[in-house]
């Protein structure tokens, strides 16, 4: 073994966390669960405070809540669902905040782990979105939603042999997984990048011949931390707006 050689830690060490209590049980509570719970609680606290203030000119926490409501209304629901989308505001808003806070812990000191870099959070929300948009389609169009999606009108009959399996796979199978994998892989990639440069910094610190390269590595680490803020916001936004687009597609299938 060369002392100071760069050794990346095994992936399990950077994404898996020991349970704080309930080890081995289905309710085992670890850091990921704590981050998820914290994301919920912070969001609830923000809205509880905002709802208790009724100032004409919003300020502070009230402003955050109202701006985010406006953001979800104008940037997610309006382009994604269109008219009749106001009903889905609570769900999409909760989703946005939950994902954003779960993502942003990746760069907050002492957490240093996005909860969405584990598959659990993305897959839960993606399956929820999947159940939700199919439910919306069935509720508003009955079985015609399924037949309309599988047999798109205006296609010559023999082509259904080709189109129907593709539509089935792309609409009903791939959607939840692409939704989950997109978020998960983005956050995991960001997390691994941060871990890589942190490990590089630590290694360079202990390895005298190359210690001059430390500032470069440190600069990259800081720049990537800033980039991760953007990614955390953007991935929460993209997940939410894709859910809105799927719901909109189920609500107005003609578009």
């Amino acid at each position, binding site marked *: *073994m*060369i*002392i100071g*050689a760069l*050794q*990346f*830690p*095994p*992936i*399990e*060490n950077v*994404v*898996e966390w020991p*349970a704080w209590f*309930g080890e081995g*049980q*289905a*309710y*085992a*509570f*670890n850091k*990921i*669960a704590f981050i*998820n*719970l914290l*994301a*919920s609680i912070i*969001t*609830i606290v923000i*809205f*509880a405070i*905002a*709802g*208790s*203030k*009724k100032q*004409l000119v919003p300020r502070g926490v*009230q402003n955050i*809540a*109202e701006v985010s*409501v406006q953001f979800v209304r104008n940037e997610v629901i309006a382009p994604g669902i269109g008219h009749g989308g106001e009903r889905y*505001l*609570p*769900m999409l*808003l*909760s*989703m946005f*905040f*939950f994902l954003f806070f779960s993502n942003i812990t990746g760069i907050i000191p002492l957490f240093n782990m996005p*909860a969405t870099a*584990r*598959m*659990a*959070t993305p*897959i*839960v*929300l993606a399956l*929820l979105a999947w159940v939700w948009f199919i439910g919306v389609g069935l509720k508003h169009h009955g079985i015609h939603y399924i037949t309309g999606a599988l047999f798109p009108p205006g296609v010559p009959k023999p082509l259904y042999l080709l189109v129907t399996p593709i539509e089935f796979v792309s609409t009903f199978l791939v959607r939840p997984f692409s939704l989950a994998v997109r978020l*998960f892989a983005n956050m995991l990639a960001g997390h691994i990048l941060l871990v890589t440069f942190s490990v590089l910094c630590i290694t360079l610190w*202990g390895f005298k011949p190359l210690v001059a390269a430390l500032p470069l590595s440190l600069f990259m680490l800081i720049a990537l931390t800033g980039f991760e803020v953007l990614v955390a916001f953007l991935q929460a936004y993209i997940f939410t707006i894709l859910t809105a687009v799927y719901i909109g597609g189920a609500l107005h299938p003609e578009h």
Partner: protein
Amino acid sequence: MLAAALLLAAEEAKKTVNPILPVTEEIVWAAASFFLLWMLMRYVFLAPVMRVMDDREGRLREARAEADSASSGADDAVAAYNARVDVARAEANGIVAAARDEAERYRARKLAEANAEIQAQREAAAAEVAAAKATALAQLRTQVAGVAVSAASRVVQKDLALEAQLQVIEDYVNGSNEGGTR
């Protein structure tokens, strides 16, 4: 040391599960947290915020409608003012036109008067000239007759009665005048 430790950790980690796959307890907690958040937002915490926002929007709409009505009132006032200005301008135009007519008439009258005066003066002058011409002619005629008579008395070597000769000349002139015109 660190590297060795990490390698050992890797050996140990072989036993653990795939890092891609979700873990049951994390699914449980993620689902529980999200449903807690969703239900609380849906039924408790979002409504007051939305109510405040709707109130504000309603108030803004009211204020805007008020401002619109106020501005339309101002528009009416401006229109009325413009109408009054138009009336006044028409009136002023009428007055100016009347004054111009009056001036025109006055000018015409004055011009006619002046023309008449000039005409009268011209006629008077012409009459004077004619009178002067007639006087001069009459004078010339008596002098010519006098000269002719004295010339004739020289020719005939005897005094001729001026009066009688004058009568003769007069007759002749009259006769030659008649002959001339013939």
